[in-house]
């Protein structure tokens, strides 16, 4: 099956709730003033941050897209929108193919559980069956290089070891569409090299890749298209080389 991502006029607004608007007392007070008039326009009275504005693009089978932009420009938000974590405030979104998001890979690890248990736990959180995880366990075991530490509770791990475990347990899936946020800067030289190779392998295997990163050389190597974001809007969309030049021009 051909994978495809299509976004049309996507807007995503984040309402900001401060302590005032979070309180029920305030809501009741304001309701009594203007009856139910305000209740229906709940979000209009709150402050709103525009996360994404007027996003339009189509990614087809074989596209490897680089997401560029300064901090806070909406790269992770866009990835989370594509993964289905966020739903757009307005606009049309169409996705064909199954998705794996490597955005926040260490989510849900439990300090009291052992490394092995956490691998199973992470896999099941991603919708895998226990027997499927056990099948690839040797590979994960080998990849993590944690050896007998896998039998020990996670809270005894150093942060580098935790990152190894998180990455190793995330390599289990073979998705059509791979969404990836820059995260693999942790770990020692040996592991960075190993995980980079693995990431390249996964990127090759995926039919669509969306990759947010600040490593321009890396992006040039793996991506054939690029989206440049600025304040939640697309400021450039085209081939990687030109997008990077555009990006450098603005942010030097």
């Amino acid at each position: 099956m051909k994978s495809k991502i299509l976004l049309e006029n996507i807007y995503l607004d984040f309402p900001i709730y401060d302590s005032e608007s979070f309180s029920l007392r305030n809501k009741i007070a304001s309701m009594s003033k203007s009856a139910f008039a305000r209740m229906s326009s709940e979000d209009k009275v709150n402050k709103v941050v525009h996360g994404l504005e007027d996003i339009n693009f189509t990614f087809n089978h074989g596209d490897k897209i680089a997401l560029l932009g300064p901090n806070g420009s909406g790269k992770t938000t866009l990835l989370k929108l594509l993964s289905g974590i966020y739903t757009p405030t307005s606009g049309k979104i169409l996705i064909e193919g199954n998705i794996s998001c490597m955005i926040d890979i260490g989510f849900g690890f439990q300090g009291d559980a052992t490394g092995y248990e956490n691998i199973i736990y992470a896999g099941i959180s991603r919708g895998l069956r226990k027997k499927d995880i056990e099948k690839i366990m040797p590979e994960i075991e080998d990849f993590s290089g944690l050896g007998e530490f896998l039998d020990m509770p996670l809270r005894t791990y150093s942060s580098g070891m935790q990152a190894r475990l998180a990455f190793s347990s995330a390599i289990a899936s073979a998705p059509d569409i791979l969404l990836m946020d820059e995260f693999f800067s942790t770990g020692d030289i040996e592991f960075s090299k190993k995980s980079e190779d693995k990431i390249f392998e996964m990127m090759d295997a995926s039919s669509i890749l969306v990759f947010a990163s600040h490593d321009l050389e890396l992006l040039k190597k793996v991506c054939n298209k690029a989206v440049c974001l600025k304040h939640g809007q697309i400021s450039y969309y085209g081939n990687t080389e030109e997008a990077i030049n555009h990006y450098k021009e603005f942010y030097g």
Partner: protein
Amino acid sequence: MNFFKNNLALEDIIYIIKNYYSWSYLSYFDLKLKYRRTFLGPWWVVLGIAISATAMCFLWSTIFNLDWKEYLTYLYSGFIIWMWISQLVVDAPETFYGEAEKYIKAYPNPPLFYVFRKCSLNLLLFLHHLPLILIVTYAVNKKIELNVLYSLPLGMFVVFLNSVLFTTIVGMISARYRDIDPLLKSIMPPMLLLTPVLWKAEMLGSHINYIYLNPFTYFVGIIRNDLIGLDFDINIWIGALVITIFQLIIFIILYSKKRNRIIFWI
């Protein structure tokens, strides 16, 4: 029909049924972790219930001037069912903004997924304590009615269904308005005294009908009455059914309208 097309509540319920393996395994895992690093593990809780219920039985059967044997089954069953119900009520506000927050923000499971994970953990805990009721009832009554075979699963199903609806509704409201959590935490202890858990409905004499104003009466009743061989009370089942339908309607309206907002509230 427009209502059924693209209805978020229905879509997510289908997702939950398809992915039953994930949430049930995760709650089993939560249960295992809960008792990690204890020697007696889950038996601590069972032992704790046994100690406090037995002590309460001797105290209250003297105060109320009751036959302690009969009261023992009543108190054990009531106390254990109450533990399930009060736990799920107190847990409900933190469904989305507590532990689940980091999952909701990192992985695209529907919010209802975390409701099921939490509610089935509470169900598992109850199943753990249930044998205690059966043992005590059998030891005192020397028999257990056959109709328990269908009334117990049915009663548990109704309570579980209501726990899902209640947890979702309260979880959503309190993700938006954080006042609900302290409110429920202060209501539940006195509710124990206002619900026929420790005392029997007939002790109220001519005021007996007041118990039907309390929604918890029904949910304690539908599990307990047959289990310990009390008289069948149709009012209890009707009441439970009415509350279920009422919650179901609120759930469908609230969830399908505001499901996508939850992530912005937490």
